[in-house]
């Protein structure tokens, strides 16, 4: 066991800005060489989210799942466990919420809405519980099991959408809609912004308080920083990391519940999008610091919405931005090495 296993805390902004500048610069040269209008491309990426009300709302809607999945990755990371199963946990949450929203139709909103959210959170936690149990009981690496559960979840989602409550009118694997009372209320009517963002921000705050201000959170961080030392001080190391995974699963499940109850109002195949990748990116860029996760997640949501606009209007593949983000991540990580010397 290495003596220190956690990422260094987010330090001053200079290395971040340098990394962003270098990555965007390199990608810009690349795009220019291919004959694209770089200035227009970059202004589209950076400004789409702020120019119109629609852009703002779209960004906030993207921000919610990215934030929650980033938390789902970052909380276990505090115990130095890698939850790469956020996608499957989100899908499990979406399946659970959709099932509750369909089965409990007829109940008043005050009963069905909490039930839908709880079902999503519970299903996500349950989905993470199997890898957590395998880790606790048999020591199986969570890097493997969490990611394998993603592939299992695709089958579950497809099964529920085509065999459970299929919407036969849709051309895509989709369930029938959840009860109208099960939908999250809107904060803004047009363009629609649902109340899920409050749930997400609330969860982000609660998790940060839990990890940084409670005894259990301290034990969690101690386990991640130096498992052997933590064990010698009587911290139940063997139990903490699996529980952190389950907590991560619950957060991802909440994301799934919000996608169903707030955005799609049904279980729809493809609900997971590429949130998992973005969330790993956010977690690593934020150096596992839960307080830094929300602003970084917001920045990533801005880039993602902008990149999609750029693809629509300029035919530049959206993956350009992913590569840039990957480069930023590498440069930011490299800056640690420089700082250590």
């Amino acid at each position, binding site marked *: *066991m*290495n*003596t220190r*296993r956690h*990422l260094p805390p987010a330090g001053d902004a200079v290395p971040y800005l340098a990394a962003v500048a270098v990555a965007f610069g390199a990608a810009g040269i690349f795009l220019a060489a*291919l004959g694209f209008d770089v200035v227009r491309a970059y202004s589209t990426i950076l400004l789409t989210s702020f120019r119109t009300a629609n852009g703002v709302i779209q960004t906030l809607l993207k921000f919610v799942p990215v934030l929650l999945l980033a938390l789902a990755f970052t909380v276990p990371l505090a115990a130095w466990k*890698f939850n*790469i199963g956020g996608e499957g946990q989100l899908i499990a949450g979406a399946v659970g919420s959709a099932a509750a929203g369909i089965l409990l139709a007829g109940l008043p909103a005050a009963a069905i809405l909490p039930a839908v959210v709880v079902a999503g959170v519970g299903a996500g936690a349950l989905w993470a519980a*199997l890898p957590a149990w*395998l880790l606790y*009981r*048999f*020591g*199986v*690496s969570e*890097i*493997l*099991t969490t*990611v*394998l*559960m*993603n*592939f*299992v979840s*695709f*089958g*579950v989602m*497809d*099964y529920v959408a*085509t*065999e459970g409550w299929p919407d036969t009118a849709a051309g895509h694997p989709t369930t029938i809609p959840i009860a109208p009372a099960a939908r999250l209320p809107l904060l803004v009517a047009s363009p629609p912004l649902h109340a899920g963002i409050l749930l997400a921000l609330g969860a982000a705050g609660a998790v940060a308080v839990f990890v940084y201000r409670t005894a259990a959170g301290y034990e969690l961080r101690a386990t991640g920083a130096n498992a*052997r030392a933590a064990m010698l001080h009587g911290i139940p190391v063997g139990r903490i990391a699996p529980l952190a995974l389950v907590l991560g699963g619950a957060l991802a499940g909440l994301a799934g519940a919000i996608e169903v109850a707030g955005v799609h109002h049904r279980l729809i195949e493809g609900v997971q999008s590429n949130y998992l*990748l973005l969330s*790993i*990116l956010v977690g*690593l860029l934020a150096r596992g610091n839960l307080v830094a996760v929300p602003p970084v997640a917001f920045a990533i949501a801005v880039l993602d919405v902008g990149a999609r606009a750029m693809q629509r209007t300029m*035919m530049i*593949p959206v*993956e*350009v931005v*992913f*590569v840039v*983000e*990957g*480069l930023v*991540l*590498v440069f930011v*990580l*490299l800056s*640690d*090495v420089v700082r250590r010397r």
Partner: protein
Amino acid sequence: MTFIRLVMLTLVPYVLAGQGTMLAGRAGVFNVAQEGIMLTGASVGFLGAYLSGGNLLDGMLLAMVVGGLFGLVLAAFTTTLKMDQFVVGLSLFFIGLALSTLLYRLAVGVTLTPPLIPTLRDIPVPGLSRLPVLGEVFFRHNALVYAAVVLSAVLYLLLYHTAPGLALQAVGENPMAADSLGINVAVMRYATTVAGSMLIGLAGAYLPMVYTATFTDGIVRGRGWLSIALTFFGGWSPHLILLGALFFAAVEVLAFRVQVTGVGVPYQLILMLPYLATMAVMMPTFRRLRVPAFLGRNYDRERRLQV
């Protein structure tokens, strides 16, 4: 009999990626970027073959070069710069995933019908391929099927019966001791990580050249992650990895079979089979597996005490 034939065909990416993971792991570098490297290998392998007018060898070489570059970055960041192996590996996974699609889109653009390359031809082994049954099952395959089996044998001999192989084992078990015996730990780590990633890139290139004749975003379907599991089952030993790959390939072929013939089981459940089977096997075996003692940890010769 065709079942075994199909298993032999399906074995290849698992063997190549598994042995590639094993090589780096034996030196203590735990590569977790397989899925990204395989995707990029599939993409550039396809593009190399497509842009050279259907020359599959060009595609394979390109995939190996690009895979090797991933390995070089992984080795430099972990061995020289002492960055955390999982963090770097996940970053490379992310970049590989993005890069594979980006390169394909930039080179091919958006088309209604995907461009195609030829698929690998079978090369019957002279003489042996005429054997009844056995010839059909084992000796009429594409070149990479033979290569995967031969590679496993070569790696076995190298690892257990040559001096560099024993030195490599020492590096993964106890780099301090290896270092004090004059073995260059860093060189070992670089060489095996680069060579291993070249194999992983080739494993990716195999997919479009055998299954689809084109590149699609979901082409790897977790085979990179499964290859990590495979390496654990195989106890980081070449011969057992070959055996484990047989199991993985058999499950994959079986899942495909049941899906096509349909036996009343929902096909979604069948599609989960390889992943569920992997986890089921891992449960009883994981604790007893032999893993290189220094796997996933960086060696810093200036830090004397490595707890």
